[in-house]
């Protein structure tokens, strides 16, 4: 067995998984609170990547240095993704909070369709080359054959984001409010939690992590188009379901499992059927363990 090849696939899967995790967190948080699959979440990630591309291109023409561009592009992507996430929730989901879940889901699909075509029409349908924003570190040169500095940055950033998110949810006031709302919206409102605000914050936080993921992956892969959000969104959703939707550590674990299985599958078997495999995996998980790896199974009350 070729260990170097194995290691390469392992680290590739890890990088892939950490990106999935950044997107999956948004899905799982939103699902945990309002029990809605936010189909437009992948589109938020795509808009983040597009904003970063636009800001980075404009700034690089003004002649800024690479590090400043990276920071500005990242900040712009996060701000705009949050704004879009917030607006989407207010327009498409809030009026449907009491409606049947099928209605909200169809509304989410409509929003996703709208945002995709909005970017398609306002920008372009072609693949745009994305500038490599993450610099190659000199001190990392000796290890670059194992893991490139880009991948290192992706791993470190996702790790930091996940830790921050965990801290936010575990130890801050708004985190506590989020957990309370996830358990019972009515009771949360009764003890004085502004449920609407909590839901907005959830959407904003989820969008922010998705935007960070969007910028990182776009910079790593080197090209974007309006369609990237859809497949990434579906994959991240698969990851969230895999780990048990609604559970944050579950989403992270599921993302890594999905990243590794995909990486090994494409490395050892075939790259044509990568997406087929991801979906098959989802179907099998849902058949044999519908609550996911870490999810708790719900008992339905009458």
């Amino acid at each position, binding site marked *: 067995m070729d260990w170097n090849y194995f290691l390469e696939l392992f680290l590739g899967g890890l990088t892939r998984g950490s990106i999935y995790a950044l997107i999956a967190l948004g899905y799982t948080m939103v699902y945990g609170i309002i029990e809605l699959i936010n189909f437009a979440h992948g589109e938020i990630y795509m808009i983040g990547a597009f904003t970063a591309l636009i800001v980075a291109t404009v700034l690089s023409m003004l002649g800024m240095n690479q590090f400043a561009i990276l920071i500005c592009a990242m900040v712009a992507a996060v701000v705009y993704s949050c*704004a879009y996430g917030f607006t989407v929730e207010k327009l498409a989901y809030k009026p449907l909070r009491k409606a049947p879940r099928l209605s909200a889901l169809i509304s989410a699909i409509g929003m996703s*369709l709208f945002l995709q075509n909005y970017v398609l029409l306002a920008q*372009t349908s072609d693949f745009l*080359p994305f500038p490599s924003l993450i610099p190659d570190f000199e001190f990392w040169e000796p290890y670059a054959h194992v893991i490139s500095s880009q991948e290192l940055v992706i791993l470190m950033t996702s790790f930091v984001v996940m830790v921050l998110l965990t801290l936010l949810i575990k130890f801050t006031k708004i985190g506590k409010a989020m957990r309370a709302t996830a358990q019972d919206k009515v009771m949360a409102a009764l003890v004085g939690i502004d449920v609407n605000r909590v839901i907005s914050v959830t959407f904003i936080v989820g969008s922010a992590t998705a935007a960070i993921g969007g910028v990182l992956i776009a910079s790593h892969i080197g090209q974007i188009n309006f369609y990237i959000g859809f497949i990434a969104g579906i994959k991240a959703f698969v990851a969230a379901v895999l780990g048990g939707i609604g559970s944050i550590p579950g989403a992270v674990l599921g993302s890594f499992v999905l990243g590794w299985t995909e990486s090994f599958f494409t490395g050892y078997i075939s790259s044509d059927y990568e997406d087929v495999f991801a979906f098959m995996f989802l179907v099998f998980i849902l058949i044999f363990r519908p609550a996911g790896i870490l999810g708790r199974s719900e008992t339905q009350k009458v």
Partner: protein
Amino acid sequence: MVTFEEIKKSFLACIWFMFLTFPIMVIRVNTVQNEIEWRWKNMILIGIASFILSFFWRNLFRQKIKKGKQKDPYENTEKISIFQKVLKEKKYYFPGTVALCFFVIGFPLLFSLYQINIMITALIYVMLGLGLNIVVGLAGLLDLGYVAFYAVGAYSYALLHYHFGIGFWIALPLGGLLSAFFGILLGYPVLRLRGDYLAIVTLGFGEIIRLILENWNEFSFGPSGIANIPRPGFFGIKMSLEGHTIYLYYLMILLVLFTIFVVNRLQNSRIGRAWIALREDEIACQAMGIDKAKTKLTAFALGATWAGMGGVIFAAKTTFINPASFTIWESIIILCIVVLGGMGSIFGVISGAMILILLPEYLRAFSEYRMLIFGVVLVVMMIFRPGGIIPDIRRAYKYKSKETH
């Protein structure tokens, strides 16, 4: 009456949307030639549009709330629209039907070949919409992979013809049966899943089928597709292209009538009522002794059958198929048809298909905005008119409380 408060709100919405759409709408970068295009005009348009639309948006909400308050829980509150009135009263119903019949029969004589072709496409979508209506509208199972069955039908005709020389008339029921088989194949594992999980699994299933068709070259000839699929024959009589099209048109009319007949009969049958019960409340439905598994599987299988037959006709109409015709967006268009028309309502689905397929054809200028508008339609319909254009008339039993004292 437009108050100051209203204007302030709209002004804020206007500023917000101008900010929101700024990078995407205003700046367009060309990374190859390193050029930036600034489109300030778009920003002004967005500002004006959001200012005006925010008034409408709030107004619609106000109406919705008003309507909600007026509702009397003891009355059958579903308002009957003009269209439904026309359908009910014999005075209008009879001449209407006669006029419609003449129009339908005379259509190929009045219009050009191009129009007939568009009409055939629209009729295929009517069939698909009615099929999906069984799954989504009646049984309440959100199926986002409906196009997979359409693909199964189309490919089964193409491949059966290619390998065994099987003709259209044998392929039509065979395609339907194969699709039904696939429907059960998909339905079985997802029996236990609820709404949103089901949506995602069916979506995945649709993508699996498409990816397999795209990648398994030995089986499906990959992205290059299959050409030279024969058009339907009529007792071996040779026909010109025009003759074929007109023939296919009448064939479609007959098939759509057959579909309407079957769906209508199904709706009021034992199994149809079981679907509606399942849609309304799964637990209560099971408590009434309805076999959940069987009911769901029949919904999937019957829905898939129509998609399969639609696929066979599609293959026969275009004489060429490839996986690009069976993307997820096709499923979403069909879903749009059902949602826009009115879930569960046959006339709603027919008018939905006509609007969504014919309008973009005739409004060529807007055709690139088609999917954008579909997206808006889905959201707005769900918020303001979840029943669709022509909502399904619910069977309601009225109770009159007797004065007992």
